[in-house]
């Protein structure tokens, strides 16, 4: 046995023993039976799956629609904050106020205000659909975060790149469009994915509007049968969606680091 094989073997044995011991303690604790009945009931689990899948499909629709809008609106706000010149000061100010406000307000408050408050005004032409307002609220909240991510990316592109673009006669907007933003976006893909994961989880907040998404579906079932197992189905579904994305983010970060190392680090 080589030294490497030996250390793998030792790690394996120690891991099995460690988690085995924890498992044994949990399963043999005096209240394990109640825990299992309330949280890990196999029958309830199986019965909850179809409803939970219907619910999570709503979440997926919400966060995918919102994410597309967020990636666009966030970039518009980030660019607005970078506009030059005294004439455009009000635009910069507006963009700054927007990011400050929507990062400060609790998400649940924004969702409540928009989802219940705006339709209650009864204004003509304003939609009443809760799905619509859920998407709008999440878009407004997350665009504030995402615009800051974009802005950090834009500011990380060296000013000499802008100088080179402008010296060729490109306008401020063209320099952003063709030179700065493409480089900035590449650098901020990992933090953008991070915010996307946050958005996926926060899609459960729209349950307060009565949208029967996955969390609301679990809540309704739990209240009907007095068993918490449906929530575990919900938790499992979120893990199934977000963990692969988190691994993808890690992989992208590692790849980016490898590439930079290959070109000699600092550029």
């Amino acid at each position, binding site marked *: 046995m080589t030294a490497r094989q030996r250390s793998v073997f030792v790690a394996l044995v120690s891991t099995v023993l460690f988690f085995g011991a924890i498992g044994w303690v949990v399963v043999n604790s005096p209240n394990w039976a109640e825990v299992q009945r309330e949280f890990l009931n196999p029958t309830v689990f199986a019965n909850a799956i179809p409803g939970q899948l219907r619910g999570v499909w709503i979440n997926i629709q919400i966060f995918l629609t919102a994410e597309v809008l967020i990636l666009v609106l966030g970039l518009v706000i980030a660019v607005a904050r970078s506009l030059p010149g005294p004439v455009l000061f009000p635009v910069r100010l507006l963009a700054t106020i927007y990011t400050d406000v929507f990062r400060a307000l609790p998400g649940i408050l924004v969702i409540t205000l928009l989802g219940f408050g705006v339709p209650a005004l009864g204004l003509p032409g304003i939609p009443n659909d809760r799905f619509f307002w859920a998407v709008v609220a999440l878009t407004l909240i997350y665009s504030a975060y995402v615009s800051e991510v974009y802005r950090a990316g834009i500011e990380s592109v060296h000013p*000499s*790149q802008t*100088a*080179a*673009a*402008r*010296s*060729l*006669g*490109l*306008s401020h907007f*063209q320099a952003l469009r*063709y*030179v700065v933003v*493409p*480089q900035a976006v*590449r650098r901020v893909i990992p933090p953008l994915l991070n915010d996307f994961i946050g958005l996926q989880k926060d899609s459960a907040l729209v349950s307060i509007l009565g949208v029967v998404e996955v969390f609301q579906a679990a809540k309704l079932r739990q209240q009907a049968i007095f068993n918490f197992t449906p929530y575990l189905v919900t938790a499992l579904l979120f893990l199934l969606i977000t963990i692969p994305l988190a691994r993808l983010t890690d992989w992208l970060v590692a790849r980016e680091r490898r590439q930079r190392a290959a*070109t000699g680090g600092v*550029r």
Partner: protein
Amino acid sequence: MTGPAGRALLIEGLHKSFGSLEVLRGIDLTVAEHEVVCLIGASGSGKSTLLRCINLLEPVDAGRIVVGGEEITDPTIDVDRVRRRIGIVFQAFNLFPHMNVLSNVTLAPRKVLGKSRAEADDEAAALLSRFGLADKRLEYPDRLSGGQQQRVAIVRALAMRPDLLLLDEVTSALDPELVAEVLDVIRELATGGMTMVIATHEMGFARDIAHRIAFLDAGQILEQGPPAEILTSPKEPRTRQFLQRVIRAGRL
């Protein structure tokens, strides 16, 4: 030296400060069409700032710059239109790392001059082969040597067919064995009659190529004249001092 020609560039009383630091303190300079003027002087004497001012990359505090008869320091001027006619090449190349060589060269002709992709590609290909870069068309800047990158940067500036080309210490970031290939390109441009203002530390090169050398010291042009005069019998003690230091460093 070219015969009597139009005036490509006129600078009068140019002042520029960064905060409390006065970098340019009253620059007067004229450059004729097809003339090559080399700016020499110690680091911090204002050579780079002067070039950046001519390209309006730095706003000037006082004075006038006239390019091809048009006052470009006029505050109402369209800076993007002015910059189309003035090319600049930077010490650090500043190529766009996310684009291949061809896209680096064709970006401005396509987006600024509105040329079709085919037309811009053809012109870029012709320029790239002229400077020995034909086989590098599809490479990304990171995969090129410094000398190749700088030649691409020169081609990128030339693709806009500028009336005036500014070169800002374009060989200072290069390994010594890569300097010659870049200088050869500039020499060819001078032979072709390109009007150029060149900030450089390569005194031997300046002597060969320049019609006129201007010595900058502390933000002023202390003296200027034909290379033979400035480099061999300078009038000003500061110029002599500077040249002695250069000779001691083995750069002349």
